[in-house]
């Protein structure tokens, strides 16, 4: 079942009555989440991603706009009638109940035609427990489980009543780095196996990129870009998205376009046909640099970090907007580095131009 958000808006009234300033947490949000996909809502803290999730769940009421589950308008439907499973950031497992009782809890609430027999409930509980691999822990209390296990129990509880939509709020934020890697694969696997349309919220771009079918990038309540992770990475719509995605982060230079050529400092680094003369922000992905003794872009070398397969060149330039520039090149090319300066040529498809004022993407008429 797909989920459609139409002009969804959430305004929080101001806390300070005198100033009367409202907070627009989510501003005129419209997009469609295709059926059976894993969607990452991504953005820095305070961008309205959790608010969006809670509006989909129904725990928060939108100030405007509509939410559709399939063809059904659920904007006014109470959370319990939406058929959703929600995993809270800190899991919200009932501390006084065992894992089994926690998973059974939503099943015992089912009434009418959905009412299950005791045996069926137990069977279902073990079924979802097996899916998230916690069937060995059924008689433990949440306090006796590790963070990762609690996370699985929370997912099992959310899945037990076979929701139409699974929502996860920062599902990995309480886990340590190693567990995070493992659990995100786990979430991916569970989502694939169940085929439930799943939306999760994260501020970690790597997390979102690695497991999502689609990512939705937000900033200050405004939708920035939506698309497949690789597409968004390769074709950012604005400076914010370009900066937010990618590790190591993108390098930003001050640049100027003159006569169809892009200048960084005094050297023309790239042809940009069809772009009017103007000042621009130039974003270059770390992997967009090519070591080239005769290359147009020269930087002061400060450090070379060897990371096995790759080499990371840390350097600086007057024209850079950040104190350091980081370029990633193949380890085999390392021999070419010598002296205090390093010269690069650029891969055109890894270089993005953004307007100096509006920070929107400027596209040359043909990309080589």
């Amino acid at each position, binding site marked *: 079942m797909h989920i459609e958000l139409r002009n969804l808006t959430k305004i929080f009234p101001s806390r300070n009555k005198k100033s009367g300033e409202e907070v627009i947490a989510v501003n005129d949000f419209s997009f469609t989440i295709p059926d059976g996909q894993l969607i990452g809502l991504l953005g820095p803290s305070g961008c309205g991603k959790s608010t969006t999730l809670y509006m989909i769940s129904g725990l928060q009421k939108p100030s405007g706009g509509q939410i559709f589950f399939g063809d059904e308008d659920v904007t006014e439907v109470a959370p*319990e009638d939406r058929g*959703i499973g929600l995993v*809270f950031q800190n899991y*919200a497992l009932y*501390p*006084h109940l065992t894992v089994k009782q926690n998973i059974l*809890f939503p099943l015992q*609430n089912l009434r009418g035609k959905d009412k299950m027999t005791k045996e069926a409930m137990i069977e279902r509980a073990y079924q979802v427990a097996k899916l998230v691999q916690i069937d060995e822990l059924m008689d433990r209390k949440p306090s006796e489980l590790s963070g990762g296990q609690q996370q699985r129990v929370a997912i099992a509880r959310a899945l037990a*009543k076979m929701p139409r939509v699974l929502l996860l709020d920062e599902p990995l934020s309480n886990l340590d780095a190693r567990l995070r890697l493992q659990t995100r694969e786990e979430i991916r696997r569970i989502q694939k196996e169940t085929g439930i349309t799943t939306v999760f919220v994260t501020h970690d771009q790597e997390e979102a990129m690695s497991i999502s079918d689609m990512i939705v990038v937000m900033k200050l309540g405004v939708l920035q870009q939506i698309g497949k992770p690789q597409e968004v990475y390769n074709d950012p719509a604005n400076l914010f998205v370009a900066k937010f995605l990618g590790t190591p982060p993108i390098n930003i230079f001050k640049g100027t376009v003159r006569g169809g050529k892009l200048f960084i400092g005094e050297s023309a680094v790239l042809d940009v046909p069809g772009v009017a003369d103007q000042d621009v922000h130039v974003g270059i992905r770390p992997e967009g640099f090519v070591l080239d003794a005769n290359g147009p872009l020269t930087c002061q070398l400060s450090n070379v970090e060897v990371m096995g397969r790759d080499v990371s060149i840390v350097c600086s330039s007057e024209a850079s907007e950040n104190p350091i520039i980081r370029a990633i090149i193949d380890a085999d090319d390392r021999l070419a580095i010598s002296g205090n300066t390093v010269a690069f040529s650029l891969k055109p498809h890894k270089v993005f131009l953004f307007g100096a004022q509006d920070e929107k993407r400027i596209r040359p008429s043909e990309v080589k």
Partner: protein
Amino acid sequence: MVDSKHQWKAWLYLAPALVLLLVFTVWPIINTVRLAFLEGYSGMKAAGGATFTFGLENFEKVITYKKFTLTLKNTLLLCVLTVPISTFLALLIAVALNSIKPLQKTLQTIFFLPYVTNSIAIGMVFAAMFNVVGSALGTPNENLTSVGIVNNILQIFTGKDHYVSWINSNSPEWANMFVMTVYIVWNALPFKILVLLGGLQAINKQYYDAAKIDSTPRWRVFTRITVPLLSPMLAYVIITGFIGGFKEYTSIVGVFGDKMGPPDAPGRLNTMVGFIYDSLAQNREGLASAAAIILFGIILVVTFINLWVSKKRVHY
């Protein structure tokens, strides 16, 4: 750890508190135990140079006194009646208070008022509310026109001439007990509400969101989530409630005066603490000490039972 060279300083700083505790708490406790075992001890006689032998006579006397068994019965009855009722009501009120937004602070203050009001004063108000004005002291032919507000309300339903003598002469014992139960429950509510409300507000709201998503019926949310998560607080108010209940005294003085009963049956509602005071008033300190130790023993046992039960019932 304090450096041994400066330990005397630590003792010096502690001295004011320690001296007061020793003089007014530790020594009286020791002395109470001592007096309890001095047969027939009386301060007056001791001052006159009499000596007393060690023995259990005080305890024997206390338990064989009819008066004492009456106070024991009254005390137990009041505890058993008031602690469950007040705990249950406090829980309902706390949950209700917690679930409303407007006027919450105002209502909280109103519910807290009994806590900061003198219990003798409350008792007098209760006495007035349950009074039958005119009948108790009036002539047989007096036309009864004015009664307390409780009887006034009852008369709306039962007719003009009908009234219950709650605390006056000829009042039945159940009516006396009823008045005391209402009074003690009302007086015990604020503290319990305060503790339970604090407990409720400490419960993570996400449990309720999670329950809502799972379409949990209200009653089930209350019994399966709120009560278990509140169980440590509930155990606390029940245990302190029983301890307070066994020490009940001022409430009865407040309503009935120091006769501890209606005018025609003084002492009918006397409690264990009342018995201790009475013995003291008769210069029978040995007897009073023995009764105090018995009371202490009962509270100790009941508290252990409470703790034992709560270990099984209190979650996490």
